[in-house]
């Protein structure tokens, strides 16, 4: 930006796209594709980190919960003629399910990365030149609250063997409603912050925090989880903490990868700009 007014527009300027092929230009009008790649990379690594973490720490706990479940259902079967037998029939061995955990979280991470990238592109399209590192960290913190923390506060994770298969449809609907309310609520918080741009920092930040609290409170308008939790409180607490920890780990890795790739892209762009300026 040190160029004099007489300097012709740099190749990055939107007014001179004729000289370079538009699709390959670093300043292509829409950065969506690069962001999608960034989201896929960040999501797969975040999911992998969360999956390996849980494989090491949470799976022993899950196996314990499943053994407790089997003991309970055996006692139950003796009570009323094997009503639960059909449901507890195993399709996969536990070790296959251990691998399934990691694969499921990597696949989910990829999908979350795509949604994150598109939301990031929508929110940040007005100022594409801002520093990508603090922006990725802030966006990941908001996404962690919306996708992981708020829904988990309303409907905390349950170890295997707690849920009743008769209520799984209702519980899924409630959980999805909680996630949707949290995500829309986070956009509302952002809008409140943006629209109070004329006010002082304390006013904007307190208004945004108040909106977040209202969204969190709204989650309690949803019905309670109808299932009893017949496991030891220690196991329940440990499982929920490990679940939350794996969410935190996923978002930390996600933010580092997404922001890091953004920084690299910024440096590469600055490099080409610096190289093109003296030549002109």
């Amino acid at each position: 930006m040190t160029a004099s007014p007489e300097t012709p527009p740099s190749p990055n300027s939107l007014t001179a796209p004729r000289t370079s092929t538009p699709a390959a230009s670093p300043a292509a009008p829409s950065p969506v594709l690069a962001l999608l790649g960034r989201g896929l990379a960040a999501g797969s690594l975040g999911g992998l980190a969360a999956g390996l973490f849980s494989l090491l720490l949470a799976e022993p706990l899950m196996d314990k919960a499943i053994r407790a479940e089997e003991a309970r259902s055996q006692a139950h079967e003796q009570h009323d003629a094997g009503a639960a037998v059909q449901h507890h029939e195993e399709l996969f061995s536990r070790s296959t399910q251990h691998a399934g955990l990691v694969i499921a979280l990597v696949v989910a991470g990829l999908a979350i990365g795509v949604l994150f990238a598109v939301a990031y592109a929508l929110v940040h399209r007005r100022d594409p030149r801002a520093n990508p590192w603090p922006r990725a960290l802030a966006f990941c913190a908001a996404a962690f609250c919306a996708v992981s923390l708020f829904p988990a506060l309303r409907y905390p994770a349950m170890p295997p063997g707690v849920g009743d298969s008769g209520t799984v449809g209702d519980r899924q609907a409630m959980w999805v409603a909680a996630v949707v309310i949290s995500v829309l609520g986070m956009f509302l918080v952002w809008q409140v912050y943006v629209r109070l741009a004329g006010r002082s920092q304390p006013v904007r930040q307190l208004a945004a925090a108040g909106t977040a609290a209202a969204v969190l409170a709204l989650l309690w308008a949803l019905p309670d989880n109808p299932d009893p939790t017949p496991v030891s409180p220690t196991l329940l607490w440990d499982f929920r903490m490990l679940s939350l920890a794996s969410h935190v780990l996923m978002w930390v890795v996600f933010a580092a990868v997404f922001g890091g790739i953004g920084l690299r892209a910024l440096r590469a762009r600055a490099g080409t700009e610096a190289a093109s300026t003296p030549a002109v």
Partner: protein
Amino acid sequence: MSASAAHSAPHTDTAAIQSATIQTRDWLIAAGAVILALITLYAVFMDNGSLISATGDYLHEFAHDGRHLFGAPCH
């Protein structure tokens, strides 16, 4: 003057059309990716044999531990 204006007008038009085409293409790709991502999330966290009904509950059982850990409701 008028000649140069007439000369430059088609150029800005093509540039505008090109950039609009790229934007439309990118947003179509983004929309397709979002739909794919939502289907994937449904398959991993919500399917109970309805998406791949021929295979019964296999998808659910394979992703079973991941569901519990992520906080998705399960049986």
